[in-house]
């Protein structure tokens, strides 16, 4: 008995230590967001909490507008990604394609997913300028499609493949067309996949900084991560405001790990292993 319980205590100690290391940086930012600037500087352990930073972030820095922009570009991306990827996933997963063609598509998607986004930043800057959509949510959506579609197609192809052929065949025999089978039979069964791809697309678009900083320049389209970077100036960091902004930026990821964890796990495992 004692031989067995000893490693267990070691493991739990180790897990608790790991949890503290993981949570501490998050808690520090959260704590700072409720401190007056003078308390941040003092470095004292105890302080009287205040909403001062929250108020000034929203009133003096147009933070509400940045939140709307983040919301618009992330949800716009998600809607288009789901439409394109569910169709592509269904086509690749349920119809007969030659093996080399499927491998070619999958290899292309994989490569795009692996490329550092920086290779797209420059050309997208030039292209969005030319199209006159620079500094609009549309420019961001365009870029995020490239980043989010590969993983979503891989995920939805897996979920389409898991739809039992018998059900589709039965619908076919009943005289349903392929488009009806897709929308009324297959899509409802692919819902967990839609949720997985949708949530991941939303969170990763919401989190992006590189394209937001290179494709926007004003509060017309600027998103939260750029706002965060702007709170850190050359010789001074506005610690109160930056921690408020960081706390808001973390909300989608936070909600996702709390309420939709199995989707995250499932989606990213498909991306890494089946890809």
């Amino acid at each position, binding site marked *: 008995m004692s031989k067995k319980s000893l490693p267990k205590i070691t493991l739990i100690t180790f*897990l608790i230590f790991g949890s503290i290391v993981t949570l501490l940086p998050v808690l520090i*930012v959260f704590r700072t967001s409720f401190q007056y600037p003078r308390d941040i500087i003092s470095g004292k352990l105890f302080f009287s909490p205040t909403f001062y930073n929250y108020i000034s972030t929203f009133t003096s820095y147009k933070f509400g507008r940045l939140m709307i922009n983040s919301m618009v570009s992330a949800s716009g991306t998600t809607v288009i990604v789901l439409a394109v990827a569910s*169709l592509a996933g269904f086509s690749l997963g349920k119809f007969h394609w030659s093996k080399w063609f499927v491998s070619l598509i999958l290899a292309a998607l994989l490569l795009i997913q692996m490329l550092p986004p920086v290779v797209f930043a420059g050309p997208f800057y030039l*292209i969005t300028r030319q199209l006159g959509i620079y500094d609009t949510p549309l420019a961001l959506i365009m870029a995020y499609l*490239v980043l989010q579609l590969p993983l979503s197609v891989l995920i939805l192809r897996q979920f389409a493949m898991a739809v039992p052929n018998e059900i589709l065949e039965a619908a076919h025999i009943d005289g349903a067309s392929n488009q009806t089978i897709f929308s009324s039979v297959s899509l409802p069964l692919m819902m967990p996949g839609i949720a997985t791809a949708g949530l991941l697309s939303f969170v990763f678009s919401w989190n992006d900084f590189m394209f937001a900083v290179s494709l926007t320049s004003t509060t017309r389209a600027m998103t939260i991560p750029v706002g965060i970077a702007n709170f850190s100036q050359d010789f001074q960091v506005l610690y109160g405001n930056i921690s408020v902004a960081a706390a808001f930026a973390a909300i989608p990821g936070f909600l996702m790990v709390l309420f939709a964890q199995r989707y995250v*796990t499932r989606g990213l495992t498909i991306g890494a292993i089946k890809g």
Partner: protein
Amino acid sequence: MRHRNLHRWIDDNFKFIALAPIILVLVILVLMPVGRLFSTSFSEVKFVSGGLLFNPIGFENYRNAFKDAVAARALLNTTLLAIISVSVEVVIAVVLALSVGYIKRGNTFFRTIFIFPMLLPPIAIGVMWLMIYDFNYGVLNSVLAFLGMKGPAWLASNSLAFPSIIVVDIWHWTSFVFLIVLAGVETLPHELSESGRIDGATEFQIVRKIQLPILRPIIMTAIVTRTIFAFKVYEQIYLLTDGGPGNRTEVISSYIMRVYFNENRMGYASALSVLTLIFIAVLVFAFNQLQKRVFVEKGGE
């Protein structure tokens, strides 16, 4: 009648119609920028009134790239960061995943915490560590001051800046490796470990001789994916050190972004991007081959 024909036509060609959007996106949103990247990489871009002037200069940008000491430094730093971070991440993640798999109660609680960092905006992670590393007000130096020591300027120090960045990267990405490895741990057959226990094997032997060999392919996958992802590192460096001090934390992405958007040398930055693209493509191909071999070996058993 015509409407019905259309319906019929869609039905007949549905597999092509359904695939058309993704093909269009790939062609327009991927090939177009990449084409643009290639063409720009052979030019010198000048700002003239009313727009940009693309002056063809042949391979000049590429010749310069191979002589560029900062670019070499950025590539070296990124590679070092990838190797060091991924090695540490894999060790921590495997131990964490095995531990979470081993305990029955509290399983979900720990899993939630360990997955969390990956879902945070990288720039917010930068903010967290800015508050830890700050020379004057940072938590780290406050703790050191409490212990009676004077803390260094972590991010401005020649010797400490790069290790400090690596710590942030490990904090951020261990979560990803953990998630992938845990997926493998959760499918470990209990019977094998159980029969090992009956035969009198210690827990440590069971992990080393039974579980790790089964997990090897999935750990390999995690290493490969994570190593390639490590070459994307950017946001935290932008916020924490911006490549400094003196290029000591410069990485591929931070250097290309600076050359393109701050120095406005678009042609040259494009050449660097093309080289990055080729480098990563080769890496992906090489790792893919390697992985195939590992899986074939595995399948042969």
